[in-house]
């Protein structure tokens, strides 16, 4: 009954290999990854297909798709190439998705971490603020922010980040509340480690998995929010975003439905890819939940 020598332990599998093995188990998640890869590819080749300006006139207005090689997916009522719009729109959508998510997660994690870790009046104050944000419908708040800040792309991204931090804040607060009582946190307190290091170095890595999974949901939501803004004509007119394209196509919806339908389809696929990705991450990061 001697102690098993740690040398006998099975050799460590590289972490990414373990990740991939678990991720692969969910076929839908793999599909999500493939779709996301396609969107990234679209964004990457945008400059090759249309190096000058996606908003320039490329052919006669309202050309149907598959009529001419110059504009494979047709043109809108101003004669702009829809395929060029889709490609460049992918860049804008990904940019908005990533940056807005980073902003909302950053705000949410800091507020949730402080509230959950310190508890007491800190928690009370921060959670009342969070509730104040939650009671206002997020789209109404977004409209108000964009109306105040102006509808440049930077402001839109910032505004989306500001309206969507409440859920990650609640999530990380819950994680921190349960983790701060754990013995390993007490053990490092006992070593003399300060609060900041405990929050960010000890607890945060353990609290991160559910937050990362939720980030994919926020990413999808951010893309939808931007599209909705653009549909209402509040998008940044200097960029070809998918929402802008749908918003402008609305006027000719009955005669040339493809002007709205094609960017709409792109949005559906992108949002779907993010939510499938989230499911896959759930499998990787919370393997215990779904074990058969």
């Amino acid at each position: 009954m001697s102690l098993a020598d740690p040398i006998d332990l099975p050799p460590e599998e590289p972490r990414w290999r373990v990740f991939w093995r678990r991720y692969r188990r969910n076929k839908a998640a793999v599909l999500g990854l493939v779709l996301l890869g396609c969107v990234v590819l679209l964004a990457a080749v945008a400059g090759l297909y249309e190096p000058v300006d996606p908003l320039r006139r490329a052919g006669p207005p309202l050309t149907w798709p598959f009529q001419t090689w110059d504009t494979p997916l047709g043109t809108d009522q101003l004669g702009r190439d829809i395929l060029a719009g889709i490609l460049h729109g992918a860049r804008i959508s990904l940019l908005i998705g990533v940056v807005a998510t980073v902003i909302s997660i950053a705000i949410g994690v800091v507020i949730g971490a402080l509230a959950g870790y310190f508890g007491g009046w800190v928690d009370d104050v921060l959670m009342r603020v969070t509730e104040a944000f939650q009671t206002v419908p997020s789209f109404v708040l977004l409209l108000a922010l964009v109306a105040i800040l102006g509808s440049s792309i930077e402001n839109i991204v910032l505004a989306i980040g500001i309206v969507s931090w409440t859920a990650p804040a609640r999530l990380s607060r819950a994680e921190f509340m349960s983790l701060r009582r754990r013995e390993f946190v007490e053990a490092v307190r006992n070593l003399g480690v300060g609060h900041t290091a405990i929050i960010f170095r000890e607890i945060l890595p353990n609290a991160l998995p559910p937050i990362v999974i939720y980030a994919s949901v926020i990413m999808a939501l951010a893309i939808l929010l931007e599209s909705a803004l653009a549909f209402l004509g509040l998008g940044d007119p200097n960029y070809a975003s998918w929402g802008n394209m749908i918003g402008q196509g609305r006027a000719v919806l009955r005669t040339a439905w493809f002007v709205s339908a094609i960017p709409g389809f792109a949005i559906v696929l992108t949002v779907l890819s993010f939510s499938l990705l989230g499911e896959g991450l759930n499998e990787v990061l919370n393997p215990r939940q779904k074990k058969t």
Partner: protein
Amino acid sequence: MSEAPILEIEDLRVALPEGSDRPLALDGLSLTVNRGEILCLVGESGSGKSLAAGAVMRLLPEPSVRMTDGRIRLEGQDLATLSEREIRQLRGNRMAMIFQEPMTALNPQKTVGWQIDEVLRLHTSLGRKARAARTLEMLEQVHIPDPRSAMNAYPHQVSGGQRQRVMIAMALAMDPRLIIADEPTTALDVTTQLQILRLIRELQESHGSGVLFITHDFGVVAEIADRVAVLRRGELVEQGTADEILNRPQHPYTRALIAAVPDLTPPAPRSFDGAPTVLKAEGMRKTFRARGGIFGGRRKAVVAVDQVSFDLRRGETLGIVGESGSGKTTVARCITRLLDADGGRVTLDGRDILSASGGDLRAMRADIQMVFQDPMASLNPRKRVVDLIAQGPIVHGTPPRAAREQARELLRLVELSPAAADRYPHEFSGGQRQRIGIARALALEPKVIVADEPVSALDVSVQAQVLRLLADLRKRLELSLLFVTHDLRVAAQLCDRVAVMEKGRVVETGVTAELFANPQHAYTRKLLASVPGRDWTPPQIREDAA
């Protein structure tokens, strides 16, 4: 006797899912439980003893864990041939189970009386009044004080020991032939444990049932068993009468297990006459204020630590023993400043810890370190072992490279291979993890180590190794140890002096050997009298057997 034994298990095999540490949880287990007999199934964690109970009750987590071979007969009737429906009629009726944790095994939403009544409702056609009478009778049989009001109480309103009594009343309501008790006293305090063991024995004798009693504790075995079966990694290594197994074990594994049980007789005391006092506590107090919510109602404030004083000299080990709720852990946490005490003084080498703050407190933390109870929960799962150990010195200003170098040395000191340094905690067994926890505490070269139940989560053989390591380290490094434990056997072997706590107060302090031989306070006497198997002295077995 011509009648069939109550339970016969023949060549039982239970398969584990793929990727487990072994293919079969139980491999060819054969047992019999006769009428009016208590058979103790003993084994360490992971030996498959609980799965044996699950197989009999057909409560295995199928299909991943399933019975692949063998025969289980209850009074001659083969259970494998029964349908799910017929098995359900047997459960709770002719065979019943008592679980380890009565709080989770009882439904918190229903009253105690309702839950006993449910058993009767399922298995009898008695009317409401008759069932109520039977319920009351059962509660009387398990000696619950004021059974009438207990019937209407919810599980959280009665104490842990009484909850276990309720579980027993439920199990016995139908007068079952077979009672399976799966570690029924592990979650209980020693004094309560003894009462429950006596109750099981008494009821088993009056009902004439057979009991399959699953435990890991040889003290409990000595207390209650008629016959003993020892299980190791799914294989039965030895069985026999209690006297044979406890006093003349044959198989090397049994001998090693029994050799690991700490003796209740303390060794001769060591002398600390010239040694300076390192840690001194005077009049320490801590009250937990009840924080009532809107619906919480008003609860009383709990005095967890009340005027506790003691001193600890260099190289000495002071044991703080007591039952759960006695405040021993609160004392440990106040001294290490994980909790803030309400009053009193604690001085470490003449400096006051309780009033230190900021930088002073941080500097003092290096001198007083802690080893925690649960070695899994106290190590951050996302850090490598070397970083866990080096963290303290790095925080206190050692250059990271030197600290990691030192961490690898410490691994050798706690008898782990230096190859362990780059692994994560989950790759280690419980005992190995506790060694990592000890290495972390040693990394700051503290003067005092506070150990809060450091071995109670470990199996007995691992426990013995960790205790030996602690004893060895304190001698080599002249460590002072404040050792919090509920286990008097462990305290007897490791502690030089013992402070006995009851309800937040220290009722008696003394040199271990004297205190054990001649306890002064009534509570100390009661504690000592409740240690399971106190009349059994583990036989001295030569080391070559292990």
